[in-house]
Each structure stands twice: as structure tokens, then as C-alpha cells.
């Protein structure tokens, strides 16, 4: 029965999570949402636990979300921002780790610009590690909050589960760890993922690696989709000219009301934020309260991160 669903010490990615493990996080998150609606928004669950947010890359949204999640579970939360531009990265990292280890944290939440950094850190720290985004690789809590948001809307789509659900992930999936993580998560849950975007912005071997079907035409990619996820055009990660111009990008790949009409009836729109209005999504679509669930994603992010801290502290973090 439900007693051995979550036995992992770390949450490094969606890649190896089973359907049951994902469901165990979603279930806990669904009931933790209630805490966030109370007058006293706090439960004593993680009292005496220490959570360190270690961010080698700026991120106000994710860091705040993890910080609040820890605090609402009564953990002590410390934020550490580390400049990532240092050339002596290896050295700096080891030094930082030694400092951290001395504080004896239970959970360390890490964002790092290099793919796979967390796996290295996990080998050098005793604490449970949560990957809060590593380079272009993974961002598992974003995928989990997306899955929770989709799960909430399944009844509106006349569905009881993820099987056969079609999710169109539109735009720059090449630079997007969100796209990779949600594709892997949906695959585990039995859903179908499409990567829709220009050839230069789709990761190679998308089908083999992520089980994603690739569409190089926006209209075709949206056809019959139940969920449309617009990705932020990550100009800051682009070292060379991936697109001719932002205006042209919007003309071909912007999510507009007309394009959304191609999706399945009742289809809704998601975006991991922050949104670039008039780049990957029109304001009209982003602000459409009937179709856009972007703010629900933020609320669910908090609950999912509370659930992740809870599950990890229940296994390895609670020494």
C-alpha cells in the first residue's frame, strides 16, 4: 500500500521518478495547499530542521517560493547567494560546501548554472539535496507544480488521469530545463508531450531522450492539445543568434488567441514565468482568466515545495 512510495534522499530530477513517487508528492502538496489558505499559515512539521537555499544563479521567484515553503513548515531557512561568475569555480564550490557542511543543514536547495552540479554537490554534503534548476538540465519542482496544476484541471477536460493527455510545450525547449523536466514527468504519468518550436530551439533527440514529439509548425503542434505550455524565450542563455528578431519570433511562435483556438476545447495555458509579453505569449492570452492558469502555478509551486521538503525530511534529511 502506500508505505514505500518515497525512499529517496535527494530530488535531483524527474528523470528517474516513478509514477507512484510523483503521485506521493502531488498528494502531500494537495493537502498542504490548505495550510496556505488559513489565517495561521504554518504547521510545525519541520520544526528544528534547517533548510539552506544555495543559489548560484539569480532567481527571485523560485528562491522565495522555497523560502516560504520552508518557513510555513516551521523549518529554519537560510538564503545564500553565491556569485557564479568566478573563474575558480571548482575551488569556490568546495570551499562553499565545507562551510555549508559545518552548519549541518537537513536540506540544501540548490540552483546552479551548470547542468549536473547538484549531483556533484550531493556527493559532498550529508544533507538532502533539492535541485532548484541546473543549467539546461532539470528543474523538478517546476515540473511537479505543473503536474499538480494539470491534475487540478483534469475534470474540466473530462479526464480522470494523465493517460492520453496531450501537452504542447511551445517555444525554446532547447534552453529550457522546465521543458525537459515536465516532459520526463508527463512521460512517467502516461501523458503525451509535444515540443513545438523552430528547429534551432528544440533539443536534439527529443523523441528518444524525453519521449517528446517534435513539431516545427505552431498550428500543427497545438492541434488538439489539452494543455498549452508557453516557454520563456531565454535570451540570457543564448550566446549566438538563435532567432532573427523578437518580433519575428512572436509572429511565428507567439501564443495568440487565434492559435490557441486550434487546441482542444477547454484547453488551458501555462507558463513557468516570468512571462515575456508579446514575445512567446500575447497579453490577451496571458491575462485570460478563463484559459490561463499562470497564477495558480505560482500558488501550487509553494505547496509542491512544502511537499518536497516534507518527503525528504521524512527520509534522509531528518537525521
Amino acid at each position, binding site marked *: 500500500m*502506500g*508505505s*514505500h*512510495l*518515497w*525512499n529517496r534522499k535527494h530530488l535531483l530530477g524527474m528523470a528517474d521518478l516513478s509514477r507512484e513517487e510523483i503521485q*506521493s508528492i502531488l*498528494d*502531500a502538496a*494537495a*493537502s*498542504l495547499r*490548505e*495550510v496556505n489558505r*488559513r*489565517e*495561521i499559515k*504554518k*504547521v*510545525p*512539521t*519541520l520544526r528544528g530542521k534547517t533548510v539552506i537555499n544555495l543559489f548560484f544563479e539569480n532567481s527571485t521567484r523560485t528562491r522565495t517560493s522555497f523560502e516560504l515553503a520552508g518557513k510555513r*513548515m516551521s523549518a529554519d531557512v537560510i538564503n545564500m547567494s553565491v556569485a557564479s561568475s568566478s573563474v575558480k569555480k571548482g575551488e569556490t564550490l568546495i570551499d562553499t560546501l565545507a562551510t555549508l557542511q559545518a552548519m549541518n543543514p537537513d536540506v540544501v536547495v540548490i540552483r546552479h548554472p551548470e547542468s549536473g552540479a547538484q549531483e556533484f554537490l550531493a556527493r559532498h554534503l550529508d544533507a538532502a539535496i533539492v535541485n532548484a534548476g541546473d543549467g539546461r538540465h532539470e528543474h523538478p519542482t517546476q515540473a511537479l507544480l505543473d503536474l499538480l496544476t494539470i491534475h487540478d484541471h483534469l475534470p474540466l477536460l473530462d479526464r480522470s488521469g494523465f493517460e492520453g493527455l496531450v501537452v504542447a510545450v511551445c517555444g525554446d525547449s532547447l534552453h529550457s530545463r522546465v521543458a525537459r523536466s515536465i516532459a520526463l514527468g508527463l512521460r512517467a504519468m502516461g501523458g503525451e508531450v509535444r515540443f513545438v518550436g523552430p528547429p534551432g530551439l528544440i533539443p536534439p533527440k527529443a523523441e528518444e531522450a524525453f519521449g517528446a514529439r517534435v513539431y516545427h509548425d505552431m498550428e500543427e503542434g497545438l492541434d488538439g492539445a489539452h494543455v498549452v505550455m508557453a516557454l520563456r524565450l531565454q535570451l540570457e542563455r543564448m550566446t549566438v543568434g538563435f532567432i532573427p528578431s523578437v518580433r519575428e519570433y512572436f509572429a511565428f511562435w507567439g501564443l495568440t488567441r487565434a492559435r490557441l483556438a486550434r487546441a482542444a476545447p477547454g484547453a488551458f495555458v501555462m507558463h513557468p514565468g516570468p512571462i515575456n509579453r508579446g514575445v512567446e505569449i500575447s497579453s490577451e492570452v496571458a491575462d485570460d482568466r478563463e484559459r490561463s492558469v499562470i497564477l495558480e502555478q505560482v500558488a501550487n509551486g509553494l505547496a509542491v515545495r512544502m511537499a518536497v521538503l*516534507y*518527503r525528504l*525530511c*521524512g*527520509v534522509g534529511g*531528518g537525521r
Partner: protein
Amino acid sequence: MSVIPAREEILLTASETRALIQQMADRILSDLARPENLVVVGIRRGGAVVAGLLRDRLVAALGRQIPMGFLDITFYRDDLRTIAPNPVVGATDLTMTIDGRRILLVDDVLFTGRTIRAALNALFDYGRPECVELAVLVDRGGRQLPIQPDYAGRAIEAGTRETIKLAEREKGEWIVVCRRPEG
């Protein structure tokens, strides 16, 4: 996961359970000065069932609605490290205000008292009730905290290896079973 062989014994039949609930409801009613102030709160999961059954009796006798809420105490437990890492998590549902109300806290089985301790902590995160009373269907002894029921359907002495739980025999028919490991 290995299945431990266990013997199961019916402690309370469906009709005994029904009769005990009725007796508890009668005692609660005889102590009740202001029915309009009562709120029934069930502790998930077994307590939620008993709370519903009790509330039905109280409503029938009083001829008025009684607000009911549910507490899930998973996030208030004191044994995060020792329990299996995946407790089934239910939802707390306390939408009414509990400030100044008389709370009838309901659980199916009272054992160590730790669940009730957690439930009291959870309850006080929602407000400041006038008083809290505890009603349980079965008091199995073995307390580890100074917590006693105000209303108990049946008091028994159970060994620590025995599991006592509410089970649904048929739809709406509840029994109490005792499971003890073999050997």
C-alpha cells in the same frame, strides 16, 4: 514488502457499533447546554467516520444542523523520523470559525494520546474554542500522555502489538476489528 501473518477478530459488530454511537450521542446530549454552540470535528481518517455517525444522531435528536469539520494531523505528528516516510495525507477541512465554540473532537480509537495532542495543536492554529471535549469509539488504554476521553463508547485493554481499527463491512456498516500478529 513482506506481509506479516495476522489473526483478525471482530471486536464490535455493526449493530454493536451503532448502539455504542447512539449511547455516546445520548450522553453528549444530556451534557449539552447550548446546542447552537457545538461544532463536531473528526480526526482523519477513522475519526471522521465516527464524527459523521455521531453528528447524524445529534442532528436527528436536536432537529437542527450541527457544523462539522475534519482535521488531518499528519503535519502535526511528533514522529516524522520514525514513521514510514509516506503517511497517507488527507485534507483538513475546517471552514467554520471555531472561536468561542464548544468543540467535540472525535476519533475512532484512543491509544497513546499522541494523535489527540497533535489534533489539539492543529485545532488551536484555527482559533480559540471555548472548550474542547474528546469522544472516542474505543479507548484501548496504553496512554503515553495525560489525555483522557470525555466520552468513550467502549474501553478495552489491548496489547501493544495489536492493531485496532474501524472497518467498513458493507456500505455504511462499520465494525471494529482487532488484528494481532501470529506467533
